[in-house]
């Protein structure tokens, strides 16, 4: 049967194309030897994971798959059993997570600090201030734009705590000078720079951020800007599918000498982003 394009030709072409693709893209499938870590956008955006995870995989052969969402969502996902380990930065929520039985035990891992960044023109005149709540108060009074993550993340919760201490409820101004982006740290910083707005960010993400424009660090060093990260194994008693052994291996490595050293080694432009502070295990 003559004709432009026979049935068999089409089939052959399709199979060839699919086979080529299938072979060309080997998806890493080391069978079941991986864990899922629910973590935050700040740790991902800073590039920390890309630096330390390969070291862990090289040592143990366990692949680590990171799902980066906000702290709130990470904890909720883990509650549903969609992860083996959580690594987030909101201590009260982490402790509640364990107290409610969703997590086994909380280990401190590392800390860095939050900073307030803003445009070089500094319309609210907060550069160099030492008290974060006071700086926020000045921003509110000057009604200069401020970009908030507003996504239930650790950073967001920390930010709300500072507003509370400043005696300001920024939500009433949502949409005017208080911009609730509902996004991750990087996306929020993009918006902040784009709109010349102040923002609260963790130092790690800020150092790694490639779109700073003319922005500078405005406020830093306040104790209240201390940002502690904790790691928790999801409770296998509640979710039998959790890979408890491998998850715990990750936690042990992370809080052990090798992991802590790897964290300390991670630098951008010579600056260290995260400071290991896991207590020695008992």
């Amino acid at each position: 049967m003559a004709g432009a394009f026979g049935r068999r030709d089409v089939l052959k072409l399709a199979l060839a194309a699919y086979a080529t693709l299938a072979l060309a893209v080997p998806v890493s499938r080391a069978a079941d030897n991986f864990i899922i870590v629910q973590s935050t956008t700040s740790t991902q955006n800073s590039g920390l994971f890309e630096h330390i995870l390969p070291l862990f995989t090289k040592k143990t052969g366990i692949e680590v798959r990171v799902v980066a969402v906000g702290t709130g969502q990470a904890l909720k996902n883990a509650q549903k059993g969609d992860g083996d380990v959580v690594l987030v930065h909101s201590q009260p929520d982490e402790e509640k997570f364990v107290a409610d039985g969703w997590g086994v035990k909380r280990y401190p891992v590392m800390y860095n600090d939050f900073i307030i960044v803003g445009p070089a023109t500094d319309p609210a005149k907060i550069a160099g201030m030492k008290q974060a709540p006071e700086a926020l108060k000045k921003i509110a009074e000057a009604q200069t734009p401020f970009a908030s993550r507003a996504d239930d993340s650790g950073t967001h919760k920390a930010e709300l705590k500072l507003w509370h201490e400043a005696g300001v409820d920024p939500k009433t101004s949502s949409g005017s000078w208080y911009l609730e982006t509902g996004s991750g740290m990087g996306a929020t910083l993009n918006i902040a720079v784009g709109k010349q707005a102040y923002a609260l960010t963790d130092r790690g993400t800020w150092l790694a951020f490639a779109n700073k424009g003319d922005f500078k660090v405005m406020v830093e060093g306040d104790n209240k800007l201390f940002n502690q990260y904790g790691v928790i194994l999801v409770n296998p008693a509640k979710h039998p599918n959790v890979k408890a052994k491998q998850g715990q291996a990750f936690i042990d490595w992370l809080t052990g000498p090798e992991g802590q050293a790897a964290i300390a080694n991670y630098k951008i432009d010579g600056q260290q982003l995260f400071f290991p502070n896991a207590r020695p295990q008992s």
Partner: protein
Amino acid sequence: MLGLSEAFRAALWQIATLDPQLIEIIGLSLKVTLTAVAIATLIGFALGGVLAVYRFPGRSAVAALLNALMGLPPVVAGLIVYLLLSNAGPLGVLKLLYTPEAMIIAQVILVTPIVAALTRQTCEDLLEEYRDQLRSLGASSAEVVTTLLWDGRYRLITAVLAGFGRAIAEVGAVMIVGGNIDHVTRTMTTAIALETSKGNIALALALGMILLAIALIVNVALMGIKRLASQFAYA
């Protein structure tokens, strides 16, 4: 911020040197979408053909539903699949969440209504012309479906390409069910979202350009097929 022209230059460099990270991301995108489109095509052709040919109660309701699902927002499709595949969900035992397979499932849900609705329309149009002759020749309803599908092949190819275009460009579904995990479920669209949020405009642009290039190729293929079709009076 990196000037736009500098970013373009950096992006072109990444493409020219076949940056392995880039290749991996593109490969995964194509694999997920092509697989999803292949599955959706099989389902969609059958569904559309049957809907056009067979008479059964509720037929117009199903057709209306398909038309409506053509506009299903990708995030909604992603959300539905996520709830199903989550460990707390009914299909959690399959352990498919955060895998390329989950992304394929979500994209199948997105693409199938498009292929099915367009197939139904094509078959109905053809049936207008063929119905009496095929009945006279003694074709059963099943034979009519396969005859229409083959006869309408050029128009059906455009339906498949439409589905492909939708899937390769969406980010909502694959982001939610895939988790944008490095080396595992990171596709072109989720990578663009991530790199943009990190301020890595160059890589994001490179991926964006490739996405555009793919869309362009798809459209050129479409035009080529249409021209071929009319050449042989097949259109």
